[in-house]
């Protein structure tokens, strides 16, 4: 009898929790994307990549998995897809390496994990997850982070795995251009003249059936970056933030500006402290504050009611979402 009671009780509470609708939103970076700038074949490949990421994350949400698990699953797919600048397909640093950053945050507990400047981890988002779940730390960098990831069972790959011809050619083009104006500007970095993405970064935000939010971001950084440059992606509050009381945010863009504006947390705080809607908060930060300071890029956001926003002040951004009722969209250009 007692067991029956417990069973009935848990059924009731479970079903009431399940009333929550789940949502997954992803992005694959913002950039100078305009209709016609990408070949139809490549456009289809981008769409296919985003669809696969949506499927991977949505499957988890549908089966009652957590927002954190869904975010990791979706980002892993994007990292494995060499079209996006994260994991395989990451851009090259000035030293000709692929240096990866990633972070994740759980909106329920405000726990977070991140890695910066790792070169051997197949899926940096899994390393960020391990930092969150299995270390007392939030951020680990470089060799130490790689060592930790390996110890935690993250898949390690040789440098050749991350190298794709397209990304390699981009750095060689930049090198050639640079030789001409060498030594003019110390510590200077150029935006990649890649028509597809100016700011290659991938990210995901999710709302699960239990009403919990999570956010994650992963990137190969900026082409030709040097001096161990770290952008906003591995920084909690800048490129990634999640809080059940407000929203989950993942950013992509000129990282330095997103750090200075503490972009992701700023949107959250506008909701929490100034009682703005997610849409108003994101609009103000992305379309006013960011350009005022001279930066550009994009973001995706999701609140606990399932409201979705995406803002970018670049011509385009790879973005997609899927809702509990199957409603879904995949977009690249400005509407």
């Amino acid at each position, binding site marked *: 009898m007692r067991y029956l009671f417990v069973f009935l009780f848990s059924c009731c509470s479970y079903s009431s929790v399940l009333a929550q609708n789940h949502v997954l939103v992803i992005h694959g970076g913002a950039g100078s994307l305009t209709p016609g700038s990408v070949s139809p074949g490549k456009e289809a490949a981008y769409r296919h990549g985003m669809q696969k990421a949506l499927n991977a994350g949505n499957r988890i949400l549908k089966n009652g998995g957590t927002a954190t698990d869904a975010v990791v699953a979706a980002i892993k797919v994007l990292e494995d897809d060499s079209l996006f600048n994260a994991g395989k397909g990451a851009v090259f640093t000035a030293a000709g390496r692929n240096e990866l950053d990633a972070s994740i945050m759980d909106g329920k507990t405000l726990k977070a994990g991140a890695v910066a400047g790792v070169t051997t981890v197949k899926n940096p988002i899994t390393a960020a997850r391990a930092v969150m779940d299995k270390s007392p*730390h939030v951020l*680990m960098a470089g060799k130490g982070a790689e060592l930790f990831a390996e110890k935690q069972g993250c898949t390690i790959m040789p440098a050749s795995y991350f190298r794709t011809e397209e990304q390699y050619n981009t750095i060689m083009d930049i090198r050639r251009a640079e030789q001409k104006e060498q030594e003019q500007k110390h510590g200077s*970095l150029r935006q990649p003249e890649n028509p597809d993405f100016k700011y290659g970064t991938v990210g995901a935000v999710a709302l699960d059936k239990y009403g919990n939010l999570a956010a994650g971001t992963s990137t190969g950084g900026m082409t030709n970056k040097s001096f161990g440059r770290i952008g906003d992606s591995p920084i*909690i509050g*800048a490129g990634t933030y999640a809080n059940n009381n407000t929203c989950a945010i993942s950013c992509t863009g000129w990282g330095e500006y997103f*750090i200075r504006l503490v972009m992701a*947390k*700023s949107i959250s*705080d506008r909701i929490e402290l100034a009682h703005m809607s997610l849409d108003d908060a994101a609009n103000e930060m992305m379309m006013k504050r960011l350009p005022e300071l001279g930066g550009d890029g994009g973001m995706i956001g999701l609140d606990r009611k399932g409201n979705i926003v995406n803002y970018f002040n670049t011509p385009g951004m790879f973005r997609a979402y899927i809702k509990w009722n199957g409603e879904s969209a995949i977009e690249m250009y400005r509407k």
Partner: protein
Amino acid sequence: MVIAIHGGAGTILRSSMTDELQAQYEQGLNDALEAGYTILKSGGSSLDAVEQAVARLEDFPLFNAGKGSVFNNAGKHEMDASIMNGKDLSAGAVSGVNGIRNPIFLARAVMDHSEHVLLSGKGAEAFAAQQNIATASEDYFYNEFRYQQWQEALKEDRVQMDHSDKKFGTVGAVAMDKTGNLAAATSTGGMTNKKFGRVGDSPLIGAGTYANNHTCAVSCTGHGELFIRAVVAYDISCLMEYKGLSLSEACAIVVHDKLKKIGGEGGLVAVDSKGHIEMPFNSEGMYRASIDADGKKTIKIYKD
């Protein structure tokens, strides 16, 4: 014009403090405070004042930053620093640098002479060489006391906060100059015996350091991981900007309520655009000093 500095927060017990040692700490704080204040008095910027004050704290061997940095697991000194200008929200930071005499000078160079905000490790050191930032040998950073701390931590295979008691060794400064501009700077040697390239809140804009002329300038010291998750320095600014709280109200909420709830021990120094100073902490003590708008100097270690 006002300035406030800190040399770390934590369990600072009177029982383990001698009069002589306390006098040394106070002297270290006073020297750094005066170095920053002298710049402000002569019409210098708050940015220069916090940079110089932090550099003096880095030079002082008893604080865990620069010369007095703790040993990491590999027996090295891995330092982090950051600086932010409240006038234009420009910022610079370095993490995991080795052999840099004053990491705060390197953070300033990142802000002034690179297109980046945060540089790390070997790359940051290469940038330092390009910028002619002074380096120092292992000998310069060697300190018998720190070495013994590390040996003890190694033996027990534990990561240790600064000192054998629970102390968060970090130094920092905030200031407002004659023209009303705010700035903040923070520097640290991290945690004794730390592994895995752990990065704390000190080099992270928004977490350990933040400055905005519209609100306040903040430099934190404490349990870095929790300060990162709570984005502490920026949180103070947001509570002022979006909720209209005073600096003192915002500090009280963040340090004594929000941080306490998640077990985030530590403290911070802050100044607002009207020149108010706050130096709250939820640990036993915090090495701190300030000179307020009336020129009144305060140097304190314990709660009272």
